[in-house]
């Protein structure tokens, strides 16, 4: 079943066109990766899907419903949640409050409490730092918080924008294994990454983005073995 569909999405920043008719789809239960170089339009794609930025043209369908005209907060209520690039945590709030923000729209208190448990099990570090201001934490901890916070909305589609950015290799491995765990627990994941190797190893399917258009797609494994991808994104000649 298709959970998310982008049809011919065009997005502009003033006179600059960031996405030139992008089309992609994500099925329920999948992990889909979107890889590409700096400036290829990865973050713009995430902003378009999550509703932070309106489209010039095209259509976004989530769970069979056209959400193109909905605001970001309305799209969250439909069941998608983005952990933004650069982590986008609330620096002046504690870890606990940041997680509370993830559950902002939820009224089911008991389920929220069990989601807190789940997040603290995935990220024991966050439990230790519960009362600490998020802005004073390390980059890796902030990334964990951003992902944990997104989970608190109990999304059907988790959108991750560059979860490995600025992290040490050890932490990157850890984050990716957690993403895979989240997926196995039933959440569909669309992840945008510059770290193509990690992303492709994790993903069921992947798209390659260049200057605002999809130039290639396939299973993670196939792209991982594709010579042109290996040369351009994996640093292997």
């Amino acid at each position, binding site marked *: 079943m298709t959970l998310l569909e982008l049809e011919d999405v065009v997005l502009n920043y003033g006179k600059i066109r960031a996405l030139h008719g992008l089309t992609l789809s994500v099925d329920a239960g999948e992990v889909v990766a979107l890889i590409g170089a700096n400036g290829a339009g990865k973050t713009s794609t995430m902003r378009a899907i*999550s*509703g*932070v930025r309106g489209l010039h043209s095209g259509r976004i369908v989530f769970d069979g419903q056209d959400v193109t005209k909905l*605001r*970001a*907060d309305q799209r*969250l*209520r439909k069941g998608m*949640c*983005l952990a*933004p690039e650069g982590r*986008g*945590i*609330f*620096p*002046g*709030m*504690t870890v606990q*409050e940041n997680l*509370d*923000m*993830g559950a*902002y*729209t939820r009224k089911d208190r008991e389920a929220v409490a069990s989601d807190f448990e789940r997040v603290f099990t995935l990220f024991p570090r966050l439990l230790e730092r519960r009362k600490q*201001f998020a802005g004073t934490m390390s980059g890796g901890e902030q990334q964990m918080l951003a992902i944990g*916070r997104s989970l608190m*909305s109990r999304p059907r589609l988790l959108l991750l924008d560059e979860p490995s950015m600025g992290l040490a290799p050890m932490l990157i491995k850890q984050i990716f294994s957690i993403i895979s765990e989240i997926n196995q627990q039933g959440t569909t994941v669309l992840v945008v990454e510059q770290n193509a190797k990690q992303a492709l190893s994790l993903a069921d399917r992947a798209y390659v983005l260049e200057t605002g258009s999809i130039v290639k797609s396939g299973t993670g494994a196939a792209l991982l073995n594709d010579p042109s991808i290996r040369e351009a994104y994996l640093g292997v000649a």
Partner: protein
Amino acid sequence: MNFHELFAHFGDITVDGLTKGSIYALVALGYTLVYGVLKLINFAHSEVFMVGTWTVLGAYSLVGADEGSGVGILIIATVLGFLLAPLASAGTALAVERIAYRPLRRKNAPPLIFLITAIGCSLVLTETFGQALHAIFGPPFGRAAVSIPSLIPEKEWVNLSWIAISNTQILVIVAAIVMMVALDAFVNRSRLGRGVRAVAQDPDTAALMGVNQDRVIMLIFVLGGAMAGIAAMLYTIRYDITKFDIGFLIGVKAFTAAVLGGIGNLRGALVGGLVLGVVEVYSSTLFSSNWEDVTAFVVLVLVLMFRPTGILGESLAKARA
């Protein structure tokens, strides 16, 4: 310089300054809330206060309360004033947001446009009140000051050799502090308050977490407006007067208090208000009342030279219990 007078009545003068400062502080909250979230100086906030003072007068005449009325009427009128003034002020603040500011936000207008719109709203409200009151009610209403019946006769509750405190002073100070503690708790502890802080820190991410930005903005205008309405009620109890342009000077002072304490910081508004009130009364005792505004602004400039972010400094975004 009249040091003798200042030292002889130091206690009384300080309490007087704290009373004045409490009112500044309550009005300052409106500036600080809106600034914290929208980075906008809402100059129309002074008129939100002004509308509150006239509403008090309206509430009193609605039940026919006057200085000679029976206790029952006085109580009803006072309660009505405390209810209607914040309602009318919050309504005015909300109307300004919906009619003037929201359309500009939709168009992504630059900050300068908001600023001139805010000043415009302030002038429109002031002058409309000046004209409309005269047109509807005739003299003495219009551009002159109108007195408001003082329903709570002033009595000294504390009378020691070094300090005297009256009932209305206590009422003003206590009511202001209670309102501020309540607001502070709301912003720092409740779910909606967390939404307000989220929008102040990062509006895009707040939206990604499901916070409806327009609702948060309406909420802060309503909260700031209600605080100004309470301030208006307290002001009329203490000073028994209003005027179509009464908001101007109090607005400027409250704005000064907000900047002095650290704009965007709720507790800063309290500190800034109290400091400003006290500085004003000290200087008017030392020099003369003509100098109080001069001294107030000299103090502001001095504080900002050494602490450019104000006394408490942090913004609503970072402020937390």
